[in-house]
């Protein structure tokens, strides 16, 4: 059963081939067997998963099942789960249990999905390799010496190793798409405001967006239909109807115009990755799409702008972790300042501290205009680039990441090189656009992801463009040998 997609499992449950309880046990056993190797889960909720599975089976008997009823899934440990620890990959929240569910969690619960557990992630979603987690790095199922990408590395690795058929992730600068690419799965970052951020622990509020990760675009469509939509608890959530994303998947590609930004195929892109992407693009031409070269001239400004905006917002968002009300508190503080400084020095890891410091500096009196304001102006330039591009083309395609998965420890001491692995994903967050990564081949053992970028609220289009490709390719069906 573990090799099936969510759509196939949904059909199996509907036809009575197996029960949700049986299905849930299969995945729980696989987690038990493989998680020590992969470290993809921080918390496994076996008991409540079985209870949810039984409830889902009963619901099905009553004839009240939907497409996700009884489907096991996992949540990135950034989404608050009522009664279950939400660590955000940090010692700061090692013992934090929220008394509320994130909207995303609530909606999947309502749909009858079964939560297997909480997946590992870079601390507070700050990282591109899953090595900044307090709970240790996650390993890439395709090569245990390689990183799975980050920050949603636990979700990506768990799906690739078939420990769960689907999971939630969050994407601030590529944190859904880059690990999806590096682990050979499909993940979509929706338009900013499409999915509620309520209960999703904030890293950079103006960039953060939750979204689904799964094997296929079809599965992502099923999950996104359940989690998207207006939520009055999030003022930045957009009140716009949610289509049935799965219903429009088979839209033909004939006449589709795909833009290939020349800036995404230049220096810095690994040749072997470039070759895989070009093959995928050729496949799209065969399917009837037209490709045109476009330009996103301000692309090179995306990383510097991101590393001002994101740290600035994070320096403020993470101020609440002060050891006063919840979370890590140092032993025997001698006064208030000692309580603050030691609790935060002990509770936060090096990368989180680095970004808090950078952000605090960028917002300081006398520097605000030069950094934060300038970065906001760059965001506008980048959005304008995309706006002009979408006057010409329907979607934009290119590599998700400039290289395949790198080795554990390879970039950990060199933050700038690490930051460059998000060079093609970050601009999308700065503009608030939807974007998807899907598996497009391999370089040796390691997967390559193709990134598709759409106009605002064009998730339906992106999912169907990815789905058509997955109808004629089988990259998404490949299983890492060690987990077959």
């Amino acid at each position, binding site marked *: 059963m573990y090799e099936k997609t969510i759509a196939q499992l949904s059909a199996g449950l509907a036809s009575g081939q197996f029960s949700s309880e049986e299905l849930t046990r299969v995945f729980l056993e696989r987690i038990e067997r493989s998680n020590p190797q992969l470290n993809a889960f921080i918390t496994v909720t076996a008991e409540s998963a079985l209870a949810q599975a039984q409830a889902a089976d009963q619901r099905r008997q009553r004839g009240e099942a939907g497409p996700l009823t009884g489907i096991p899934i996992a949540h990135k440990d950034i989404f608050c789960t009522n009664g279950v620890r*939400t660590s955000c990959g940090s010692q700061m929240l090692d013992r934090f249990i929220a008394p509320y569910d*994130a909207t995303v969690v609530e909606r999947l619960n309502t749909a009858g999905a079964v939560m297997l557990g909480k997946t590992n992630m870079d601390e507070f979603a700050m990282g591109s390799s899953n090595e900044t987690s307090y709970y240790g790095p996650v390993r890439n199922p395709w090569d245990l010496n390689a990183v799975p990408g980050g920050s949603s590395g636990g979700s990506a690795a768990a799906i690739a190793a078939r420990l769960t058929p689907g999971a939630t992730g969050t994407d601030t600068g590529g944190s859904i798409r880059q690990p999806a690419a590096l682990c050979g799965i499909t993940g979509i970052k929706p338009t900013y405001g499409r999915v509620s951020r309520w209960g999703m622990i904030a890293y950079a*509020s103006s960039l953060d967006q939750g979204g689904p990760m799964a094997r296929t675009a079809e599965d992502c469509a099923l999950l996104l239909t359940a989690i998207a939509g207006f939520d009055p608890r999030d*003022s*930045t959530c957009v009140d716009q109807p949610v289509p049935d994303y799965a219903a429009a998947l088979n839209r033909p590609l004939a006449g589709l115009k795909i833009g290939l930004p020349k800036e995404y195929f230049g220096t810095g892109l690994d040749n072997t990755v470039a070759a895989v992407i070009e093959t995928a693009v050729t496949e799209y031409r065969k399917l009837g799409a037209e490709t045109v070269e476009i330009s996103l001239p301000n692309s090179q400004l995306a990383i510097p702008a991101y590393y001002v905006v994101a740290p600035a*917002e994070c320096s*403020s968002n993470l101020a609440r972790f002060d050891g006063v009300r919840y979370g890590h508190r140092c032993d025997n503080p001698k006064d208030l300042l000692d309580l603050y400084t030691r609790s935060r020095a002990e509770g936060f890891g090096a990368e989180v501290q680095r970004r808090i410091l950078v952000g605090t500096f960028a917002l300081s009196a006398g520097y605000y205009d030069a950094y934060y304001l300038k970065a906001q102006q760059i965001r506008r330039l980048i959005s304008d680039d995309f706006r002009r591009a979408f006057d010409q083309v329907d979607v934009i395609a290119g590599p998700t990441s400039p290289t395949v998965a790198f080795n554990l420890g390879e970039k950990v001491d060199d933050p700038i090189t690490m930051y460059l692995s998000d060079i093609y994903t970050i601009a999308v967050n700065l503009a608030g656009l939807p974007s998807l990564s899907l598996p497009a081949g391999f370089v040796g053992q390691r997967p390559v992801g193709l990134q598709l970028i759409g106009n605002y609220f064009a998730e339906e289009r992106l999912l169907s463009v990815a789905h058509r490709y997955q109808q004629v390719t089988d990259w998404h069906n490949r299983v890492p040998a060690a987990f077959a």
Partner: protein
Amino acid sequence: MEWETVIGLEIHAQLATKSKIFSAAATAYGAEPNTQACAIDLGMPGVLPVLNQEAVRMAAMLGLAIGANIARRSIFARKNYFYPDLPKGYQISQYELPVVEKGELLIDLDDGSSRIIGVTRAHLEEDAGKSLHEDFHGQSGIDLNRAGTPLLEIVSEPDLRSAKEAVAYMKKLHQMVVYLGICDGNMQEGSFRCDANVSVRPKGQSQFGTRAEIKNLNSFRFVERAIEFEIERQIDLIESGGKVVQETRLYDPDKGETRPMRSKEEANDYRYFPDPDLLPLALDEAFIETVRASLPELPDVKKQRFITQYGLSAYDAEVLTAGRPLSDYYEAVVALLGGEPKLCANWVMGDFSAFLNRDSKEIAASPVNPEQLAALLRRIQDRTISGKIAKDVFEAMWMGAGDPDAIIEQRGLRQITDSSAIEKVIDEVIAANPDQLAQYRAGKDKLFAFFVGQVMKASKGKANPQQVNDVLVEKLKG
């Protein structure tokens, strides 16, 4: 040297919304610590603020009432600093683009003149919680009930030139927010509090002197005393060769002095930036016009109307329009009585207000309602009782003895208007006081009052005073 004082006030008015500015938790005062703080107020991970529209409406009301611009687009910003009673590590406030800009307030001065004071801006923000340093054995307690309570910070131009002007401005603004119903005005509970920026400069100099900010003044008296102390301190300092430093000072009401709290060098860098969790606040014409239509009659307008419509003196109109409950009460009594506005004014400002004060009662809790007071005044009007007896009846009503008519009947207070009965009493009084009569007739006119008093006493106050007067004049002539 002659010095000029320059004062600007920043006033925090707590808005009278039922729930907090960014959460659904209640704002009521005095609850058990931390019982009115939800996950949002506690700054829990993953929670988000949602703006309370009622707070926006109230801010717009003040803006329109002081003739200010209502920003069609304003921005919420984060003011970042660490403090144990600030749960998120930042306060959500408005910084560069406030919701209200450029208004003015007319203040009346003691010498009868008035001045226009500029209001630079008014912006919405959330209050912090409270740190409690007693009863925790060397530790501090945190009460977050107040965290997230909506505040309107109203900033004046540095237009005020004395402590008295500052107090007049503060009182006028206090009257305004209470009139508008957007603030309960309770200064003891901190619903209306003030920071004062004070500086001095040689008279005639256009440049401002270095200012000190006096924080958290929560009574009109403290504002006046703190500013007066501060002016004197600054002048003394400069005249003795010193320099005023820019700093924040606290007023100690027990010692009557201000003390330094922190200097500019120690001041926080608040690292303001637009709050990414909240969209810009956009207000359209329709909203603004709806708010405008909902504005009550403002104090200055009402005062003028009282003068022209009721023929009251400026002083009476001022007193009666000081607060909406009082002016509403007065107008209800006039309407019920169907006239005699001066009589009504005397009673509302006189006995009614005196009893309220004596018992520290709000008008809403008054034991005598406008119907009852009007019924009493009607008995003066139709001469059933005299004004003097009415005072006793009023007191009985206040004590809960029932309607005026019942009291008048039960206690036999009906006025004696039968001339033969009055003449009889007068004859007896004159007969009983031959010496005084002789003195009076010898030219000691002052004794007239003595005879009136004796007659009233003999009639237990019930004789109609006018009739007593008329008959006495005749009889005393002899």
